[in-house]
């Protein structure tokens, strides 16, 4: 029996050996981070044979003998080599995702490219930037992230647009906004597309509000001509490529995530205005004391009504975000044949001014299938609805007596001007419409406007229903890929406006209201063929050719009526208004046909060349100038791959780049090349007025651009630098040139003048700590740009702005401020005989002094000089992320230095009088007793008709835009949900010498912009 058992055991070993001789290697490949199986990974063994992993990540290989070397690879992961010495157990391989610069694949126009082969200047912004931002639009999150990209908010209104400049502004009257391309769909919005022509609404809806930042996988900012030339006539201002999230490639289980956030916002800064006692004293001392206040009464008035606080509030915001993504498999299939991603988002953000806010519903899907071998098909679609509730505006008028020209631009500004001795409510709780101090603009009889009522009861809505969809198919034949794409961007914008009879805007007309609609449909077709080939190990060629067409049709209508007898239904009962304004209706059509071509060539993985060409045919120009041709050439050299740097072990990569070419700008209004007329009414009948006179020579604005750049990586990914020098010259500016009376119009768009931009950009990314439980990364960037108008033709010295505060002048920058240089206040006993006269009068003690720039002994418009410009000397950003065990901390700083801002609101609030409140700085006006050298005697009528240097203020700033602390609790692996909780503070502090609410005002003139908010948001992310 014993012998039998021994034999059995021996035989068992023999059997094992027999089985082993089959040399069957089995294993599983998983993602090192998530632990999910990697499907479709390639496992090659030394002889060159290979297999792919199945849908569970498993593989099986039969080899003749051991040991054997396995080379394991999968797209997006670092390859791994493993030596197999025996087959007694399954092999467990963990693949790590690629994150290194060298392995990056960059999205470029009409394709992708390896970063090592790139010749252009392209900066990538990853999804985590948007995940850590609380901004409802992507532009709000971009500030400080990219060297040379300057984001300036137009307003603190939720959902408001921003101004984005990439390497300065090129143009005077054409758009300076970059081109946006969303998943291949060219998404350009001019100002007219966000308005129906209704007017009276303070703020425009941000065109980018249609894109939910949480849907963004990455953003590529194309800055130089080698990268942007493929977009030809629309590439001059830079291009921002937005890639939305696609389904993941790893697991057959869909990934489901949900997040919710709730936050509070308050105004980030308040202005110091006089309180009731101070205002009454100021009225008694310097003006006619309309309130007949005695000293005793003044002492008891106290603070009175704080109108600033009355119209501001603590605002609530919340957001829900649900996303599902994954991949699909064919029956019996081992590799994914499709990817899908779906998201739904709801954002509800109250504004810090009463009755303002932003709401958005957004649904996004991105689906891709391999229908048959080599045939792929995909759909991207976004559908949603944005609603922005804003402020009504007094609107800019050409005549001098309008509230707007007096600096009262909206009800918020009017609230700041309200005397603090006037109450918001009566004793019975009803609104107080009595204001004995108002006699200039917003009072009729004994009824005066009440800004709190204005804000609460007026309607100023922008509602946009949008669909952005792109459908594509591609077919691969050998080294060629054919692709066709058709897309539609359809948007229906509705603007609702109503100001009742007791509001400031409706007071004179017994209420006014209106409704405007604009339907804009943009169709895009693209047909491309690409060729991708490696020839031996020496050459790589990637070529693209194609045709694209984009045509846009926009129809609009707007109607306004006034004199209402019943305001219950507001703008939904316009028929009640007996006064009817001329209805506005119209249609605008434009077409752009383009031929594109690009060849990328790489030799020895070291020397790269990119030649790009685009020909555009635009309907916006005269018939003989419709074709524009935009070539570019880019060269780059991967110096690190040269033998002489082979021993430089600390060097990860070093690349030099040189590019040059032409790009254009066609973003002017349609039909600017032809004569057009506008309709109106005159004496009860219809009338026509000439709106534009034909310019048969109107053509492209062209920018010649050159870039020299270097990319340097050191210490195994620990430190990276990107340095760029550039020069851009924009010729044939699309400039609005004043015309003589005989033309029938005041101005015309002509190709006149040149603008140059030259600058330097530096970006540094570093990993300061990379320990097991502690990682710290820092990114910083700084950019300098010098903008100059080098030619203005015969139209030099063009004044712009309601106060003629800006000038276009050869030798100066775009957005230069123009005014008198303040020289102080005339003091008691000062020798005034040598002072220049003002309006023919010699200044006396307490009067303002200005510099007599032309030395003619008098102060007038000829003494105005350039006082700086909106162009910053430097813009910079700093962001950092710290990960310590289960906690994460990140913050983003951004700032600018050297730019100026015209503080029109400050000027208005230091204008003394007997109607409106003023800033507390007025308390320090010059007096005979105490002097004072900034503001003149308080009773002096001001301001002077020209702006002066006191109100062209430094808008340099440093902002802590975002501070986020997150915690991801460790849960048992069996727990089905991953959790992260976080708290984010936005706009926590701003260091700036600017005296207004916020130094960021994109127009350069702060005439009472919606103030920026400081917000605190708490949220939770759940992942299944």
């Amino acid at each position, binding site marked *: 029996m*014993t012998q039998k*058992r*021994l034999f*059995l*055991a021996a*035989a*068992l*070993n*023999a*059997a*094992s*050996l*027999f*089985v*082993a001789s089959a040399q069957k*290697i*089995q*294993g599983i490949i998983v993602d*090192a981070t998530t632990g999910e199986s990697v499907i479709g990974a390639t496992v090659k063994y030394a002889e060159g044979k290979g297999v792919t992993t199945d849908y569970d990540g498993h593989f099986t290989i039969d080899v003749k003998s*051991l*040991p054997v070397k*396995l080379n394991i690879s999968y797209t997006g992961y670092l390859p*791994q*080599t*493993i*030596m*197999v*010495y*025996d*087959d*007694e*157990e*399954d*092999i*467990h*391989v*963990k693949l790590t995702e690629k994150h290194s610069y060298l392995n990056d694949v960059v999205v470029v126009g009409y394709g992708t490219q390896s970063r090592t082969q790139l010749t252009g200047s392209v900066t990538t912004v990853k999804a985590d930037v948007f995940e850590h931002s609380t901004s409802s639009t992507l532009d709000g999150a971009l500030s400080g992230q990219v060297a040379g990209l300057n984001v300036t908010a137009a307003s603190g209104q939720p959902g408001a647009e921003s101004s984005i400049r990439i390497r300065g502004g090129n143009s005077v009257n054409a758009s300076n906004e970059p081109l946006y391309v969303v998943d291949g769909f060219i998404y350009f919005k001019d100002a007219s597309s966000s308005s129906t022509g209704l007017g009276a609404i303070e703020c425009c809806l941000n065109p980018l509000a249609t894109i939910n930042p949480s849907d963004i996988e990455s953003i590529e900012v194309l800055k130089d001509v080698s990268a942007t030339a493929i977009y030809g006539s629309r590439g001059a201002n830079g291009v921002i490529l937005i890639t939305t999230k696609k389904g993941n490639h790893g697991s057959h289980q869909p990934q489901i995530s949900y997040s919710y956030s709730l936050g509070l916002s308050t105004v980030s800064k308040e202005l110091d205005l006089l309180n009731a006692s101070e205002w009454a004293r100021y009225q008694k001392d310097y003006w006619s004391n309309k309130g007949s206040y005695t000293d005793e009464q003044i002492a008891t008035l106290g603070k009175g009504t704080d109108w600033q606080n009355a119209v501001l509030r603590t605002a609530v915001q919340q957001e829900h975000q649900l996303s599902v993504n994954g991949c699909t498999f064919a029956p019996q299939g081992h590799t994914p044949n499709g990817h899908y991603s779906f998201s739904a988002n709801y954002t509800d953000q109250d504004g810090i001014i009463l009755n303002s806010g932003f709401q958005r519903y957004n649904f996004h899907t991105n689906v891709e299938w391999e229908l048959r071998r080599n045939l792929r098909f995909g759909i991207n679609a976004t559908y949603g609805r944005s609603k922005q509730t804003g402020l009504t505006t007094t609107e800019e008028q050409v005549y001098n007596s309008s509230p707007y020209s007096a600096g009262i631009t909206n009800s918020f500004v009017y609230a700041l001007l309200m005397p603090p001795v006037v109450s918001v409510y009566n004793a019975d709780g009803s609104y107080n419409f009595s204001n004995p101090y108002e006699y200039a603009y917003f009072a009729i009889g004994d009824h005066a406007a009440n800004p709190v009522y204005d804000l609460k009861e007026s309607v100023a809505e922008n509602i946009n229903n949008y669909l952005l969809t792109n459908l594509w198919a591609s077919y691969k034949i050998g080294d060629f890929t054919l692709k066709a794409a058709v897309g539609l961007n359809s948007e229906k914008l509705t603007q609702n406006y109503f100001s009742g009879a007791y509001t400031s805007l409706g007071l004179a007309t017994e209420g006014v209201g209106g409704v405007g609609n604009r339907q804009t449909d943009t169709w895009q077709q693209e047909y491309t063929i690409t060729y991708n080939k490696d020839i031996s190990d020496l050459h790589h060629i990637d070529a693209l050719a194609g045709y694209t067409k984009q045509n846009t049709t926009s129809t609009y209508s707007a109607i306004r009526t006034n004199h209402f007898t019943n305001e219950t239904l507001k703008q939904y009962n316009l028929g009640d208004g007996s006064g009817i304004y001329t209805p506005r209706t119209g249609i605008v059509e434009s077409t752009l046909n383009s031929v594109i071509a690009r060849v990328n060539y790489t030799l020895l993985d070291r020397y790269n060349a990119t030649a790009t060409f685009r020909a555009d045919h635009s309907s916006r120009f005269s018939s003989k100038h419709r074709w524009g041709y935009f070539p570019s050439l880019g060269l780059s050299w991967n110096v690190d791959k040269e033998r002489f740097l082979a021993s430089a*072990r600390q060097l990860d990569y070093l690349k030099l780049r040189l590019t040059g070419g032409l790009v254009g700008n066609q973003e002017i209004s349609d039909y600017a090349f032809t004569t057009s007329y506008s309709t109106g009414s005159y004496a009860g009948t219809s009338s026509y007025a000439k709106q534009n006179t034909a310019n048969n020579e109107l053509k492209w604005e062209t920018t010649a651009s050159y870039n020299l750049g270097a990319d340097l990586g050191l210490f195994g990914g620990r430190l990276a630098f990107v340095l760029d020098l550039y020069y851009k010259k924009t010729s044939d500016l699309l400039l609005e040139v004043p015309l003589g009376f005989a033309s029938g119009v005041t101005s015309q768009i002509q190709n006149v003048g040149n603008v140059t931009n030259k600058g330097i950009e530096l970006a540094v990314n570093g990993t300061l700590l*990379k*320990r*097991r*439980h502690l990682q710290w990364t820092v990114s910083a960037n700084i950019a300098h740009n010098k903008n100059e108008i080098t030619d203005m033709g015969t139209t030099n010295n063009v004044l712009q702005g309601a106060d003629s505060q800006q000038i276009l002048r050869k030798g100066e920058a775009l957005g230069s401020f123009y005014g008198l240089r303040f020289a102080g206040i005339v003091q008691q006993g000062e020798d005034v005989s040598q002072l220049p006269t003002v309006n023919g009068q010699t200044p006396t003690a307490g009067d303002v002094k200005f510099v007599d720039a032309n030395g003619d002994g008098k102060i007038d418009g000829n003494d105005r000089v350039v006082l700086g410009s909106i162009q910053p000397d430097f813009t910079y950003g700093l962001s950092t992320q710290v990960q310590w065990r289960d906690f994460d901390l990140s913050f983003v700083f951004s700032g600018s230095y050297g730019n100026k801002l015209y503080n029109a609101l400050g000027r208005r609030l230091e204008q003394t009088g007997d109607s409106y409140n003023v800033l507390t700085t007025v308390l320090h006006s010059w007096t005979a007793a105490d002097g004072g050298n900034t503001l003149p005697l308080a009773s002096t009528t001001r301001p002077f008709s020209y702006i002066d240097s006191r109100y062209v203020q430094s808008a340099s700033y440093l902002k802590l835009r975002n501070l986020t602390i997150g915690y991801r609790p460790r849960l048992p692996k069996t727990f089905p949900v991953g959790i992260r909780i976080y708290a984010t503070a936005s706009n926590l502090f701003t260091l700036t010498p600017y005296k207004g609410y916020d130094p960021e005002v994109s127009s350069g003139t702060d005439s009472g912009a919606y103030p920026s908010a400081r917000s605190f948001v708490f949220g939770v992310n759940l992942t299944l």
Partner: protein
Amino acid sequence: MKKKAILIATFAVATLTASAATAQNDGIITIKTHKAGRALVEKWIEAYKTVNPDVEIAVVSGRNADADLTLVSGHQKGAQVTRVGRYALLPVTSTGNPLLSDIQRKEWRSKDLKRLFFTTEDLDEEYEEEAAGKHNKLKDKLTVYSGSGKASFSPVFAAHFGRTADDLRGNHIAGDDLYLLSAISDDKASVTFNVLSNLYNLSTRTLRSDLALLPLDVKKTQSEVLLSGNLDETLELIEREDIDLIPVEDIGFTYTAFDRDIDHFLQWIVRNGQQYNHAAGFLRLTEQEVESQLHVLTQTLNN
């Protein structure tokens, strides 16, 4: 025809015996072990059978071989382990390593070993600066080899330095950790770590002639013993003194079934088998551990 018949017969026998083994019948206690522990297990079986001649115990191997007992390293999650000895891990290189003189010129501290073997640095700033100057180049020139299999000692080595096996840099191999020594023999400019039973020639009781230990920054007397290459002195040193730079972990048996025969066998190993541990390159259990394991075994049987 005759050859074909023999082939068929051999195949049939092999298949039948393999099936029989898989079914774990016939009262044989089957044991699965890594190569490092095989000599020890075989010695225990041989000695045990001298006093229990009726018990049949066999070592099995192969992917499909199931066993009653499996020799494992340290603590296994979710499994009951009867500890039967201990082992130590030492960092080692090949004597053919062109950088051997540089390696041996240095006394390797814990920080140095972490920097050499692992991908992430968990070091203080002062050391970062120091290492960036002197030792960085040596690290860059040396390839680390480590095992990736379930039975590998890599997790134990990594855990001793506060890391996980995923943090080990360099190349991984699939297969028994014994093959790590083949790997560093093929790729001379490399280092690895291994158990004493693999590093030393159990017959001559000296370090294998093709290997060289990395000199550790330990007491002089300890260093002299380690560098002497004498297995027995090394084992006694590690048993006697707690040396921070040397990972020491238990070995033990997990079991798929438990009966009186297995209990007796394990009790015998814990009580009497310790005397053979040194011979096979393993450390003995401490007296406290012996008592503890016997107590657990008795309880397990009663349950």
